[in-house]
């Protein structure tokens, strides 16, 4: 004779097992439907691409230690920070190309981020006014690989820094100051020479004849 309490317990466990089985079946069905729905939502048209615009790149030349403005047509995002990163990516792609006038390996992936901030010491303006119309500080975060592979030398390092400053200022005129980070950290120099601890004033850094 099976005790009554064991019959009750067995019945409860059986009902729970059936309930969990039903729940699993239901979840499986939902996952299957989601998968099928995802397959149906595959893109049927190309994503919108920003229209190509004219941008000025300050391209360095090691032969005569000069910066030359070159106009390129390239699609640029609307966000100023992303725009600056795209511009620098294109500039560094030129340097990574064979027979570059300023050969530096790395290419577009060498710039991790570009942050644009209001210049902190603008007197007499509110933060909102400075954010909307005041001069800006660009913080360029370079990758460690780019810095490690950059050729060492006064001229080549200086030209890299100045061409980055000049390119940002030529396309984002509100940027008047540029600072550099490497993998998010401050670093003494680019490759042993050019100082990366200071803030570069682009109006002083870029020679007027190059603008």
């Amino acid at each position: 004779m099976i005790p009554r309490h064991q019959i009750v317990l067995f019945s409860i466990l059986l009902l729970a097992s059936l309930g969990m089985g039903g729940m699993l079946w239901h979840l499986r069905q939902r996952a299957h439907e989601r998968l099928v729905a995802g397959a149906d939502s595959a893109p049927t048209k190309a994503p919108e691409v920003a229209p190509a615009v004219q941008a000025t790149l300050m391209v360095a030349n090691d032969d005569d230690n000069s910066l030359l403005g070159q106009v390129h047509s390239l699609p640029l995002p609307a966000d100023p920070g992303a725009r600056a990163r795209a511009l620098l990516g294109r500039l560094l792609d030129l340097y990574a190309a064979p027979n570059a006038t300023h050969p530096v390996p790395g290419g577009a992936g060498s710039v991790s981020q570009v942050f644009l901030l209001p210049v902190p010491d603008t007197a007499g303006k509110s933060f909102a006014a400075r954010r909307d119309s005041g001069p800006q500080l660009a913080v360029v975060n370079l990758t460690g690989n780019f810095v490690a592979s950059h050729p060492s030398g006064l001229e080549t390092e200086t030209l890299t820094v100045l061409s980055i400053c000049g390119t940002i200022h030529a396309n984002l005129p509100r940027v008047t100051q540029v600072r550099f980070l490497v993998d998010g950290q401050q670093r003494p120099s680019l490759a042993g020479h050019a100082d990366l601890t200071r803030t570069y004033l682009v109006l002083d850094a870029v020679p007027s004849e190059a603008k």
Partner: protein
Amino acid sequence: MRWSSRICAALAAAAGIITTPGVQGRAEISTAARLQAAPQPPSSSAPRPAQGPPQTAPSAPPAPAPNPPAPPRFLIVLDAAHGGDDIGGHLSNGTYEKNATLALSVRLRSLLGARGIQVITTRESDQSVDLNRRAEIANHADAKACLSLHVAETGSGVHLFVSSLPPSTPTRFVAWKTAQAGWVTRSLALAGVLNSALLHGQVPVTLGRTSLPAIESMTCPAVAIEVAPERDADHKITAEPDDTDYQSRIAATLAAAMLEWRTEVHPQ
């Protein structure tokens, strides 16, 4: 007799013949500068220690003759960049930049010394020297020119760089990291003299401004000199920056430029 000995010794010291321990360095500079720049004709009135007492009466000693103005001090600081753990860049033949700059510094020091110019170097061997220490050496020396020597694999000829700090008026107290600002105008003039000499020696030159911590704390006319490979018309390297003959030519040209700079700083 005692009076005559004192007068004789004083006049001899003033003429740079005898040096006293306390002013030995200055006496050496003065003598070297006079020999190089403007030899003094022998004066019949100039006393010599071996010639005995002068013809003045001991009882009525004349008023001491005013000391002739000492020739101005002209001293150059040579800063061979990098050293020790800081190897600098690599040349294509595997040479470290620190070794090539030291070799250039030694060559240039010898040539300048042979021309009667006193030189202080920031390092004489493969040793680490802090950037601040380099500037301290230059500033304590009160140098008339500070040359920071570099070599590189990129570009061609010689690259001359002056600090990109905006010029300002020298003041008694200056910020350490921007001390060069008061001397930027003189540094540009020094770069002009170096540029002329190098072009005269048919060495391609490029001029630029840069932010180099080693020279931005120096309170002297300071120029960073970067020796790049010598290239032919097809842009092929004909001499590496550590090539002995190439470095000797560059050093000789720089030494000639320093003589020219001395005449600008201290016109005769």
